[in-house]
């Protein structure tokens, strides 16, 4: 009987260790599944995110989204979209693990158009020396991660807004920007 109790106690301690190990290994293993899917980066046309992907946020029938991967090692990323009458749009930047680094919506910017320049800390230093004229109107967003994705979302209240949303996403561009 004592031996059974001893074995059970040992098992519970082991369960604690297994719990911690699984917990810490989960992100490392799942990261593969979420991020190796389509790694053909360096496209200027943002990839539409389908609603069917699952997950509480991406299943929303009233939100359309598009994403572009970026790698800031060689150049900054210029994310730009035409001015739109869509009631709500937003942009979020995620690092390589899919963690949110930065996010804002159309009310939290002081201009009505989506125009962002994603830079890494060394590119920020270069911008301090002088902002190129092409980006004089852009918002600068500094990210700590070199690689990741930028996601642009728009609220589409009903099908009468689809045309407007389609032209917003058709005009959305993610272009490598050389600062010098």
């Amino acid at each position, binding site marked *: 009987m004592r031996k059974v109790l001893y074995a059970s106690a040992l098992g519970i301690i082991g369960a604690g260790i297994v719990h911690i190990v699984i917990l810490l290994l989960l*992100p490392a293993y*799942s990261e593969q599944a979420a991020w190796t899917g389509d790694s053909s980066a360096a496209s200027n046309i943002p990839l539409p995110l389908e609603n069917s992907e699952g997950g509480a946020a991406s299943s929303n029938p009233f939100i359309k989204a598009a994403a572009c991967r970026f790698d800031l090692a060689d150049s900054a990323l210029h994310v730009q979209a035409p001015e739109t009458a869509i009631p709500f749009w937003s942009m979020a930047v995620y690092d390589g693990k899919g963690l949110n680094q*930065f*996010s804002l919506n159309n009310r939290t910017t002081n201009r009505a158009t989506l125009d962002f320049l994603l830079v890494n800390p060394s590119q920020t230093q270069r911008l301090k020396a002088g902002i190129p004229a092409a980006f004089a109107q852009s918002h600068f967003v500094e990210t700590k991660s070199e690689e990741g994705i930028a996601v642009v979302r728009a609220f589409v209240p009903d099908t009468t807004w689809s045309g407007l949303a389609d032209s917003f996403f058709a005009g959305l561009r993610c272009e490598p920007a050389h600062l010098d």
Partner: protein
Amino acid sequence: MLKNALLALLTLVIAIGGGAASVWAVLENGTPKSALHAGPWTAFPHTATAQKNPYFLARFAREGAITLGPGEGVVFTASNDTNGRPLTRSCTYEIAGVMPAARIWTLHAIDERGRLLPRLGRRLPGLHSRTVLYQPDDAVSIIVSAHPMPGNWLPLAGTGPMRLVLTLLDTPLATGQLMSELTFPEISRVDCNA
């Protein structure tokens, strides 16, 4: 000899089974630190502090979805009604009360795998703040049912379990407003098709 082997087996079963089951249980139900709870609604906002929590990271990695950033909004899901019974598509529910503060809110229904429910005819299983009728005190009453209903109706199609998703776009919650200062609607079961 056999006795020792059995004891070793018992230890291993408790360790591996218990460890895996406890991780699963915590990730399914959420941890008090990283989750926001309001009645039947639960959210996992992506704040900087949450992103340091290993439970949050494991849960996020397991879902594999790209969630909203705090500057965009917060997504609440409900798997149970206010009385704790699982939501199912064979029942009719009433969602009643004042929606939390947000510029826009949307409500839609998903299946157990997280996909949007099929349309009922041409109707989407979703509503938002610009399509519903409000009562004079700003409250809403939404009927979630497979049968057509007057007023605000969220149509359900198919059978099986479901979850309701309440998305708050541009909400003060994401920028640090306390949950206790916000109101959330209740989900009550009206009746069920046997």
